[in-house]
């Protein structure tokens, strides 16, 4: 898709996810579901470590001839996975616990009301060109995304007022305001740590500290790398070589897996996922993350400036039918706010909004009747047009008239999204509540696609960001979710799972849910059994 950002699936639900993986995996092993099969699967899924060797070939749904190695340009799964293959970051999401843990940093510490952040760097880490990583490299790598840069990470780093080194292995950040989640920000996937020369990195040299050394990169076609002999993690990067092929067409991707041309593929065509899972030698994997689909209404434009209209529309949708027909069951219903069930402070006690034609009719009448246009294209999310058509059907039963306007895929994000009064949208989600709300719900934020402004919400946002007490934070974020759900401009019908597949030769531990394909780090984490 057009945009994807780090989304983290922290803490609480990890157990659940891994178990779910395990169950799905064992189901995928065959109709027989023999005990032997289950045992193999157990060995597979929970083995502590891997085995070296082989070339892992991945067929990935993304990749464009305009891709580049420059970390400031990473925007699709192809470049993000390539990034995690050859480069590392200050921190990474731990697959087993979902927590943010140090990677190139050895430890970090926030002081001064989370306004000063100290990162202690791991020592003796070697780049592919033989240079040893130090504080200058880290600072230069951050600077690549600051100042006059087109990097999407630039707005994240606006809060950094100064950055300095303290010795060769320590970097200290001063922020303009307290941010208890800055370790997440500093580990954003764009900010890959690269070797510097005279205070600057060469963004397109493809050199990093990662488990694999770049051998070949043909944008939009393929990427090939071989194992980095001096990789600093001893229990990662099991393959001798990794290869990624861009296979845009979903049927071609599934054919490639079926004929053994590749060992793993992403973005399974949900329509045929159950059939793929039945094939022998194929394991279907499914992870719930923070990816969600929305129908954002412009709250600054009539009739959506009237909350009665927004509520009428929120009650006029059968969310479960959308999950069943658009996601083919591979997802969960949303509750009109962007915080996923897997998020740390998800408001699980907030009542689920259900389809209620009577309430919808009540609010519609209060607003003096509702007759609106909904703009959709499959560029917004796969099945967006179908979802809009279903929405139209549901709303009709409540006396609400929705006209579905099919927009062209091409140019959707520049011409429709944030331009038309009501449209469809895709959010990769964000690792933290603060990040998600700041990006798309804070009054005046540049990606606030509902143009919504709520004073109480904005006040709570600042309080929550600097708060370090977990219980207080939970209460704050709970209230914010309620406000968005009852007053906000976005209809959030569902959270979509990541669905991908591997051959049964591939081994792995618990899968991370912060990105598609095991947190996009499968090159490092998987192995051949």
């Amino acid at each position: 898709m057009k945009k994807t950002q780090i989304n983290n699936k922290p803490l609480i639900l990890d157990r659940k996810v891994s178990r779910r993986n395990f169950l799905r995996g064992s189901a995928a092993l065959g109709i027989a579901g023999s005990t032997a099969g289950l045992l193999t699967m157990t060995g597979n899924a929970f083995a502590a470590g891997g085995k070296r060797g082989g070339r892992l070939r991945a067929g990935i749904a993304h990749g464009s001839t305009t891709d580049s190695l420059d970390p400031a340009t990473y925007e699709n799964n192809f470049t993000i996975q390539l990034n995690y293959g050859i480069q590392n970051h200050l921190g990474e999401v731990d697959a087993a616990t979902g927590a943010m843990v140090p990677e190139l940093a050895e430890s970090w510490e926030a002081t001064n009301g989370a306004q000063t952040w100290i990162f202690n760097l791991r020592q003796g880490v070697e780049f592919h060109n033989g240079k040893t990583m130090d504080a200058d490299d880290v600072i230069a790598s951050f600077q690549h995304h600051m100042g006059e840069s087109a990097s999407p990470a630039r707005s994240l780093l606006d809060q950094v007022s100064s950055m300095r080194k303290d010795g060769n292995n320590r970097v200290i950040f001063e922020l303009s305001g307290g941010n208890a989640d800055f370790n997440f920000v500093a580990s954003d996937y764009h900010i890959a740590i690269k070797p510097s020369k005279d205070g600057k990195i060469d963004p397109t040299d493809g050199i990093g500290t990662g488990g694999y050394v770049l051998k070949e990169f043909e944008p939009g076609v393929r990427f090939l790398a071989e194992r980095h002999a001096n990789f600093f993690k001893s229990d990662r990067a099991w393959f001798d070589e990794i290869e990624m092929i861009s296979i845009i067409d979903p049927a071609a991707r599934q054919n490639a897996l079926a004929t053994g041309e590749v060992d793993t593929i992403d973005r399974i065509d949900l329509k045929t996922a159950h059939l793929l899972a039945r094939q022998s030698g194929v394991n279907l994997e499914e992870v719930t993350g923070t990816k969600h689909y929305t129908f954002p209404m412009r709250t600054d434009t009539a009739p959506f400036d009237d909350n009665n209209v927004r509520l009428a529309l929120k009650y006029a949708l059968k969310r479960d039918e959308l999950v069943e027909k658009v996601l083919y069951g591979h997802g969960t219903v949303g509750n009109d706010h962007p915080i996923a069930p897997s998020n740390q402070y998800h408001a699980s006690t907030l009542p689920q909004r259900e389809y209620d034609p009577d309430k919808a009719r009540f609010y519609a009448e209060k607003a003096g009747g509702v007759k609106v246009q909904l703009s959709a294209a499959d560029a917004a999310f796969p099945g967006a047009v179908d979802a809009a058509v279903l929405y139209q059907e549901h709303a009709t039963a409540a006396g609400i008239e929705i006209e579905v306007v099919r927009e062209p895929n091409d140019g959707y994000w520049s011409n429709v999204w944030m331009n038309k009064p009501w449209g469809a949208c895709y959010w990769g989600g964000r690792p933290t509540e603060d990040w998600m709300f700041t990006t798309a719900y804070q009054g005046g934020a540049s990606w606030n696609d509902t143009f919504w402004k709520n004073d109480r919400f904005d006040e709570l946002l600042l309080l929550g960001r600097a708060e370090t007490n977990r219980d207080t934070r939970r209460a704050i974020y709970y209230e914010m979710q309620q406000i968005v759900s009852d007053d906000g401009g976005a209809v959030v019908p569902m959270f979509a799972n990541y669905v991908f597949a591997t051959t049964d030769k591939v081994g792995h531990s618990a899968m991370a849910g912060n990105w598609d394909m095991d947190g996009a780090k499968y090159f490092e984490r998987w192995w051949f059994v």
Partner: protein
Amino acid sequence: MQKTLKNLSSAPLSAKFGMVVIFIYLVVAIFAPLIAPYGEREILGKAYELMSSEHLLGTDNLGRDMLSRLIYGARNTIGLALIITALAFLIGSLTGMTAAALGGWIDQLLSRIVDIFMSIPALIFALLILSILGTAMPYLIGTIVIVDSTRVFRVVRASAMNVAVMDYVEVARLRGEKLPWILRKEILPNITAPLLAEFGLRFCFVFLFISALSFLGLGIQPPTADWGSMVRDNATLISYNDITPLIPAGAIALLTVAVNFVVDWMLHKSSGLKDVS
């Protein structure tokens, strides 16, 4: 009238078969709302219900009746393809014959314009135009007509060139006949055969072009049913031995074969050949 009937009854079996098929398709297309058990866009139940007495071909991914969509698809697909092919032929053959008959700078000018259009790959051309103007039906039709009429122009011009250098055309010209007369009376009758053959094929190419556009996301837009998109939407099922995509594809194939059977027969008649050779 009687002559026509006699002609029809003397047609070979294959042509009769073709005509019957075309007739059935036309009836289905015209009376779609009466024949279809459910509405084109009506969402009736669960997704992917199997074939049953209630839904003869099952339901699609949104729970719409497949049979009804297939029937409505006949209307949309045939109507569109027919309009486009007819327009493309009107423009392409008129300009093509004119270019061949007149020659000189008019021929040069028309040929160069067509060259320019044709040397831009059709899909890319359509991609550009439809991205600029949007995928509304008139633009879709206009774009494919332009693309196809250039192809028709080439074939017609090439065939007509051979005729235009014939002595009898020269004689007609010397006799002082006007251009429309020459086109109608001398050139057209002598190139009917390749023209008809081209028409039969062009007709299916239009189907295919629309489905290719759908493949790239620019064809007929849902929820409107059309066969090309129905093949596309269900294409992945074929890898799992599910024949669903074969039904709309088969509908296209049957019509193509039928149209070309009839065309063959007319071709045979117009070529002046008697039954045996």
